[in-house]
């Protein structure tokens, strides 16, 4: 009897190992910069502290007094931050400005559509002007012109 149970359990383990992965919730998407994976909703103060101080910042008050929007411009990257009236500031969007930076998958401005698909897999939405990948609470958009990436933006859903 014990043998049968052991065999059954082993079979079960093997079956699980061979089965295709269960459809999980999509993972949060990120963009790399200076060794840091930037995600939407991450604590902005931590990110800014780690990215260095070679930035310029522009800010604007939300027109209904909901908080402050800030745009930090680094070499090759812009970090958009929302600071609510109460609570911690969070990253709301990230965008690459030029080809001086690339994502962890090796995608940068100037890549071809084929490069992006090869690195990232098939997009959730495709058109002549953009490739869109959806993750948990975030969207990564590659703006295209003539089949070439002209913008890379990570934003909230």
């Amino acid at each position: 009897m014990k043998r049968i149970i052991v065999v059954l359990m082993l079979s079960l383990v093997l079956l699980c190992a061979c089965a295709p992965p269960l459809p999980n919730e999509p993972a949060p998407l990120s963009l790399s910069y200076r060794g840091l994976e930037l995600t939407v909703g991450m604590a902005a103060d931590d990110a800014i502290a780690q990215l260095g101080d070679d930035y310029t910042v522009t800010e604007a008050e939300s027109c209904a007094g909901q908080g402050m929007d800030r745009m930090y411009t680094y070499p090759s990257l812009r970090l958009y931050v929302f600071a609510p009236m109460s609570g911690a500031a969070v990253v709301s969007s990230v965008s690459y400005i030029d080809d001086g930076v690339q994502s962890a998958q090796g995608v940068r401005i100037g890549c071809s559509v084929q490069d992006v698909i090869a690195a990232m897999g098939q997009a959730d939405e495709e058109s002549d002007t953009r490739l869109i990948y959806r993750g948990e609470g975030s969207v990564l958009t590659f703006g295209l012109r003539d089949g070439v990436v002209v913008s890379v933006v990570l934003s909230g859903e």
Partner: protein
Amino acid sequence: MKKTKWIWAVLTFVILTALLFGAAQALLVPHDRAANPEAFLLQDYFEADTAQDEVVFVGDCEVYEAFSPVVLWQKYGISSRVCGTPQQLVWHSYAVLEEVFERSDPKVIVLGVYGLIYSEPQSEAYNRMVLDHLPASSTKWQVLSDAIVEGESKLSYAFPLLRYHDRWSQLSWQDVTTLFSHQEPVSVRGYLVQNGVVAGNAPSHEGALPPRATAFGEMALDYFDRIVTLCRDNNAELVLIKAPTDSWRYPWHEEYEAQVVALAEQYGLPYYNFLNEIETIGLNYTTDTYDAGLHLNVYGAEKLTAYFGKILVENYQLTDTRLRDHDCVVWTEDIARYEAQKKEGAK
């Protein structure tokens, strides 16, 4: 006899509960106009006598920070009002316009087009600034279904106590006194005076995120279509406008402009993009903005309004109400408040 007593007891209980509920609700809904005047812009509208309004503006901060009804009246005699609220989306504007047509017979409706770029609900705060103030109606209920964001309850718009019940710990004596005193409007006919000057650069969306989508969304276009129909059914001309602002925070992308131009052509509507008229209007972004170019201040709004007023009188049959005694009395009060706010600032 016993049965009658029971009925009275139940009736008394129900009435007392309703009274308590009503009193608690009146006390707990936010009252702090000074801290957040934008939240009370529409309340100003519903507390005013709006029957004479011939021009009504709807939209977001691109209308309530850009057009001064006082200037329209002083220069052209046009009786107008702004029904704008922060991030007023197209479905909000539709719900507001239904109420506008219930209360008045405007000849021209001016719609700010920036809201068209959003086709999904954005935030509860902006919903509240419109829908909390609208009286109960089937339109409000229907728009609520489309407007609420995750976690919001439609019922809380009918009974705000359900939303604000946890404000009891923040109650102040001011909340109590507000209930029993007359509240001055936060705006002058819906225009929120901003007299600060923070210099900015000429309009540009350098640094802005790219367009939200390749095309305006289905819900925005559906409500836009309803607005067109509503205006036509009420014999009002619909005019589309884009305020002369363009920034990293509120970008006006070429893609947006092309779609508005196409919509205007499709429906046969006039469209004025004041970004194309900056020099003619005489705007100077070192003096005419209170937040480095995101919005116009009162000096910029006065220039824009004077320019737009001329377009209105040249193209529409509007009454010069400066010649009517009744209107002069009403406007004297509004002008005095406008001049005071211009001197001191509304915020």
